[in-house]
């Protein structure tokens, strides 16, 4: 047993040393998949921590209540709710007006809350710059201020009144910008808008006769945990809107929904791309290791040892890939998981949880296992003589392709026949192109989405969801591009090695080097075309809602054409090199 372990260890070390480039490519492929999973998990947990920190720092309410009718009677009725059993604290009701804020030539919706200078026991917004409200000044919610380019000291027009900005602050009593709950007086459905605070005494002047609404902040001995709140808790005849802290937290998290969705899809695509890449590399390596398999068998190694000697190397690389992915994801996480301007505190850079470590490791091992199991078992069960002869698996005959290719020009004839020899490799090329095109088209389509808020009052205000989404998209483009590049290079190189002999024969029969090189490039391009076409469709469907306005198709089609051209260029270089190889040399080294 010890002897076998020593043998396995020696083979492992030798393989790791001998095939450095391949090992690095395998490592990158697996690390990209597990790294994106780590990031995806980190991004999914992002909304929780900053909200909780901000709620604690601002003594945020467990529940807010607003009357739907802007009448003094409704206000009085809501004020009575502080006597509800279980309520442990309250502030307000504070008056609200739904006005506009004008700054730098832009006029946007603003929810204006009238507040007292004295700190409130519930919902005391945390000042992030300047001071809290005082007569004649306005405090702007921080995310809203950042979006509008407003700083302390600027002057803004709230309604018809020009007011100096005396500070910025954050709160959890309202949903984060741009979902502060603005609506036209008398209407229930809301529009996008930001939040500002003015002195309670100034609100009447700011409202300029508009009927005021109110908000009451409550804390409970047993805060509700759900996003809905049972209305029968409150004994009130007035129609009211009740919002729980859990609902606000959930809605704030939706600002990251696009980024989270993109990361989830990206992880999915990267996993498949990594699988395709590992499959390609492993297939080539198992062919190269065939002779060693024969030698080991000849000296008495059983199928188990043979399988282990091949498998253990990939498992070690997979574990290293999982570690690299976790480390990469952990290092990149702060870029994507920093809290938005509407929250304070930070998510920090906690070490990946045990669940994340397990998930990334399982993913890496699954990729390695799925990609290697079949070729490894095949190598283990192949006959000793066959393995010792170092004979590659005979190419498969595809009669109809041979028949069809007879009618084609020489480069196409060569290309179709090379593909017909190794249909599995052609399918890998299709899969690689499909996933790459899907990812890139989805990214381009998502990037081209309307980047502005549709209903905040000014059509040029950017949608804050896009910033985080774009960061994720850039990350995905880099990861997808890297893996696709690796996969294409590996696949092309494998094709070049496999096609050496048939190409050399074709050249002795009169095919020119250009025809041979073109044929090899065609062999890679032909399976890439359906992959690109399907990828265009999948990517478009993935990124576009059915009810979204029709976009320009140009960026998507240009991306697809770009992918095909990239495959062509990446294939042409090794194909040209292969076609320059002396024919006699190839024929001499070809197996009999």
């Amino acid at each position, binding site marked *: 047993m010890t002897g076998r372990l020593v043998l396995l260890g020696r083979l492992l070390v030798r393989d790791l040393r001998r095939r450095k480039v391949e090992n690095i490519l395998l490592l990158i492929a697996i690390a990209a998949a597990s790294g994106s999973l780590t990031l995806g998990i980190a991004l999914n947990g992002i909304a929780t921590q900053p909200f909780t920190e901000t709620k604690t720092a601002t003594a945020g309410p467990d529940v807010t209540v607003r009357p739907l009718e802007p009448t003094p009677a409704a206000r009085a009725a809501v004020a009575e709710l502080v006597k509800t059993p279980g309520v442990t604290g309250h502030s307000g009701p504070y008056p609200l007006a739904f006005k506009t804020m004008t700054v730098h030539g832009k006029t946007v919706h603003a929810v204006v809350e009238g507040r007292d200078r004295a700190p409130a026991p519930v919902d005391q917004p945390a000042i992030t710059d300047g001071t809290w409200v005082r007569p004649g000044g306005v405090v702007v919610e921080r995310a809203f201020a950042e979006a509008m380019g407003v700083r302390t000291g600027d002057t803004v027009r709230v309604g018809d009144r020009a007011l100096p900005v005396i500070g910025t602050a954050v709160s959890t009593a309202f949903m984060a910008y741009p979902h502060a709950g603005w609506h036209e007086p008398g209407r229930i459905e809301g529009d996008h808008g930001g939040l500002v605070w003015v002195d309670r005494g100034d609100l009447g002047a700011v409202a300029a006769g508009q009927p005021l609404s109110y908000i009451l902040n409550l804390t409970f001995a047993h805060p509700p945990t759900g996003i809905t709140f049972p209305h029968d808790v409150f004994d009130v005849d007035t129609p009211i809107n009740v919002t729980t802290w859990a609902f606000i937290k959930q809605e704030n998290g939706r600002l990251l929904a696009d980024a989270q969705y993109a990361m989830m899809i990206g992880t999915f695509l990267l996993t498949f791309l990594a699988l395709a890449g590992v499959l390609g590399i492993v297939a080539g390596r198992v062919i190269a290791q065939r002779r060693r398999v024969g030698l080991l068998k000849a000296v008495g190694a059983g199928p188990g040892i043979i399988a282990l000697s091949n498998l253990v190397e990939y498992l070690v690389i997979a574990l290293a890939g999982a570690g690299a992915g976790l480390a990469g994801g952990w290092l990149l996480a702060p870029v994507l998981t920093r809290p938005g301007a509407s929250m304070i505190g930070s998510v920090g850079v906690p070490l990946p949880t045990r669940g994340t470590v397990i998930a990334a490791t399982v993913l890496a091992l699954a990729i390695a296992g799925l990609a290697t199991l079949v070729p490894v078992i095949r190598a283990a069960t192949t006959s000793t003589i066959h393995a010792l002869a170092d004979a590659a698996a005979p190419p498969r005959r595809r009669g109809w392709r041979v028949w069809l290719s007879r009618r084609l020009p020489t480069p196409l004839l060569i290309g179709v026949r090379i593909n017909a020899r190794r249909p599995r490799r052609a399918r890998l090329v299709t899969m690689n192109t499909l996933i790459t095109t899907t990812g890139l088209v989805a990214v381009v389509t998502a990037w081209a989405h309307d980047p502005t808020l549709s209903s905040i009052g000014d059509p040029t205000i950017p949608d804050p969801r896009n910033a985080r989404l774009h960061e994720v998209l850039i990350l995905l483009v880099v990861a997808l591009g890297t893996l696709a590049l690796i996969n294409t290079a590996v696949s092309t190189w494998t094709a070049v090695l496999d096609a050496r002999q048939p190409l050399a024969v074709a050249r002795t*029969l*009169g*095919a020119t080097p*250009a025809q041979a090189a073109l044929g090899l490039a065609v062999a890679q391009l032909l399976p890439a075309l359906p992959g690109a076409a399907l990828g265009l469709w999948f990517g478009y469907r993935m990124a576009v809602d059915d009810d979204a306005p029709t976009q320009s198709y140009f960026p998507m089609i240009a991306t697809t054409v770009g992918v095909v051209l990239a495959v062509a260029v990446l294939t042409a270089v090794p194909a040209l090199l292969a076609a320059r190889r002396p*024919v006699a040399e190839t024929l001499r080294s*070809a*197996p009999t």
Partner: protein
Amino acid sequence: MTVLEARGLTKRYGRDSALVRAVDEIDLAVPAGQKLAVMGPSGCGKSTLLHLLGGLQEPSDGEVWLAGRRIDTLSERALARLRRDTIGFVFQSFHLMDELTAVENVELAALLAGRSPRTARRRALHLLDQVGLADRAGHLPAQLSGGQRQRVAVARALTNEPLIVLADEPTGNLDSAATLEVLRLFEELDTTLIVVTHDTRISAIADRMITMRDGAFADDTRLAGAVRAVRAVQS
């Protein structure tokens, strides 16, 4: 009329103390229709000479003329066209496409030359019939014996009606019976043939036999019919 001519043909590998003259200033003229056997021990430069004559390798020095045209200075593209139209190759390892049937292997050269599929197929079937494999046209190489495979390779070499056929150890992987089949086939050829071989039985069909040693010709013998018969019996 001379079909193929080599003047001072040289192929060197390496340099200084590691310099190897695989082919050393060889002069050769092969008349049309001649069946030339080039013999010699392993490593004497036979295969390299054949590759140089067929334009598969570039000489270090010297000239190669085929049908009155100098070919050692041609581009790869022009050489490819030349091989397609005027040279047929037969290799020891057959070099058949494993995934193509016998007839598909034979017609490949015609298809590469731009012939229509129908013409290519007709010619391939005719050649397979000539080499006695009409009933094996639809078989894959793996389903054929070594001799049959080599006969398919010979048929393929003849597909485009070449001026000359160059055969590199064509019987090296064959048993006695298969060797005789192939030699009989070569004997029936009415095209110029250069065979590089170890096999002395080739003398039964050769008009001329050159022995090579250390990259140079050691012996150049014209064989009359009677001599051929005697040598064949001896071998």
